[in-house]
């Protein structure tokens, strides 16, 4: 096998799925870090985002790329509402109850998508897009845009967290919630902001998953464990960790078929997850160990 083949058929697809996982994992890692629980409805939130974009494409005849930011905004709003209705009242109770609640929300979101959009697999645009060669590198514009948008969103988020007042407040909450409160940081506002970001990025993850393959109502749930693995691999609370974790999981999944039967492709993420929990639970970037 030539090096180019390895890059075109294993590395590039790995990086594409990796950036999709990363977008989901960022939300998971922020929620884990700031609100301190595992959010099991995250995958289905991504599904919802993807279908909202589909709805916009279908009903308003928008280009998918125009629908994306709108879908992100809508999903962000949904995330804030879900938090308000289903999670907020559990704030003072053991976190595990919130985890349970998120499982229930996952089921509810999925059945809403099934009822509204049906269970047939759907696509944003029909037809085949053949790759163009960039000096032997086979790439499609949608893949370039996926990668570029994911990178852009991540850089934007990192700059936001690093340089803005509310970004710092989020980091402070993640770092030391008690102290953040003593500094006068409004808990509720940070929680809302976290959900806005997590919801928007989940929608982006779902959208890119949909545009690179097809949309189906189980798509988010199927990617959830890979996203969790990415978040934990990178280090809980670490945005840069979630990105690296996502890319690693994506790559390893694709490369695994070189040595394993394809049926075990999904298992590679779980194996990495369990190994990292055993060997280095703080993750690559020294995240929190909850």
């Amino acid at each position: 096998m030539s090096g180019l083949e390895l890059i075109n058929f294993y590395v590039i697809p790995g990086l594409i799925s990796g950036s999709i996982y990363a977008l989901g994992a960022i939300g998971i890692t922020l929620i884990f870090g700031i609100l301190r629980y595992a959010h099991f409805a995250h995958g289905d939130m991504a599904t919802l985002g993807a279908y909202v974009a589909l709805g916009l494409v279908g009903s308003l005849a928008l280009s998918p790329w125009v629908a994306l930011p709108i879908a992100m905004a809508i999903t962000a709003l949904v995330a804030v509402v879900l938090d308000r209705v289903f999670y907020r009242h559990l704030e003072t109770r053991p976190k595990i109850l919130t985890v349970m609640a998120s499982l229930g929300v996952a089921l509810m979101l999925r059945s809403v998508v099934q009822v509204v959009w049906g269970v047939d697999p759907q696509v944003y645009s029909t037809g085949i897009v053949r790759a163009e060669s960039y000096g032997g590198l086979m790439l499609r514009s949608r893949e370039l845009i996926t990668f570029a948008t994911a990178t852009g969103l991540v850089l934007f988020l990192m700059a936001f967290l690093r340089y803005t007042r509310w970004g710092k407040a989020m980091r402070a909450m993640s770092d030391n919630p008690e102290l953040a409160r003593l500094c006068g940081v409004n808990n509720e506002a940070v929680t809302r902001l976290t959900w806005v970001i997590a919801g928007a990025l989940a929608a982006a993850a779902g959208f890119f998953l949909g545009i690179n393959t097809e949309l189906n109502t189980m798509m988010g749930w199927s990617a959830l464990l890979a996203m969790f693995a990415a978040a934990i691999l990178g280090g809980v609370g670490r945005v840069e960790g979630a990105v690296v974790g996502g890319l690693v999981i994506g790559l390893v999944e694709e490369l695994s078929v070189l040595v394993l039967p394809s049926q075990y492709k999904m298992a590679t993420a779980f194996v990495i997850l369990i190994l990292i929990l055993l060997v280095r639970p703080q993750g690559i970037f020294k995240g929190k160990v909850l």
Partner: protein
Amino acid sequence: MTYRSQLVASLAAAGLIATSSAAFAEAKVALMGGITGPIAGMAPAMIASMKLALDQANAAGLAIGKITYQEFDCGCNPQVATDAATKAVNVFGADAAVGPACSGALLAAVNSVTIPAGVLVVSPSATSPKITDLDDKDLVFRTVPSDDFQGRALARTLLERGVKKVAVAYINNDYGKGLAEAFKAEFEAKGGTITQFRGHEDKKASYRSDLAELAKGGADTLVLFDYGNASGMTILRQAIENGFFKQFVGADGMRDENLIKTLGEANLKHFFVSAPVGEAGAAFEKFAEAARKAGLDPNATFAATSYDAAALVALALEAAKGDKAKLPQALRAVATAPGERIYPGEWEKAKQLLAEGKEIDYKGASGDHEFDAKGDVPGSYAFFKVEGGTYKEVQKMK
């Protein structure tokens, strides 16, 4: 003991609608689709096809009276399916069931519910060879052939068409694996070469590395045993987009019109599928016409087998005059030769012949359904290509 009374009176306490008894006992058919779960995407078309058959039967006004039907969700899951089957048999009071859709669900449901209760089951989509070997008291039938037949027929057809070297990819479930193994056995026995033989799981975002692996060994043809509305579509798309393989061959699961719409007909010039057909080609056309009129895609996966399963159940009910004990026998009588040929939609004719005590022989949209001793259909198949937004027969398969 009389298993249950034919008259079902009010069950108001359970929230059930009271039904009054007519001159004839009502016939009841349970439609058991995989509405939730892994094949949820196929269920709506399957259920709609079943309903189409039963609605036609009711419109024709059969002697047994109106056939009442109700949907049950077998979820492609044994717990859900047994629960649904129990309700179908005991609460709804089904005389017969169409389904369950998935082999695993069917095995559990028939073993623990319908066979002991003596209820006839005709599945349109459970393809596992394990169903053949069931000790089923002649109560389990299917209108879809066991994977074995189709896989072998496809292998012979490809060799006949001069394809000697293929790579095989299959979805890792009983459908994909069953077909793949039958295909492999026959293809290799008849001198073909299989360069790669790989299973995969559904719902991954990328199958490009799988395809790169499959391409190793230099086969030009990919045989893809999967569903056209699941990972099958993703794999086909990614293969075409990346220039893997020159020719693609699928089985009936891949025959999906939505696939043509999604990927574009121009891109599917080298895509072929096998699917069961009746020996008289007109049968499918009759079904297709009715289906299109009802707004259904006749080529949707398992739509034709679903229609046939429901139609056969209705005909058997008519022939048995609603006597549940005689249903299996009646089913064999209406489905198999000898008898006057009945095509999909010819309810009036069937009704009249049965009333006169004559034999009929149903020729279905998806095959002739000449049941063997095990309740399986041998299936006759044709090889299809994509043309005009649908699938056109290229040749018969032997």
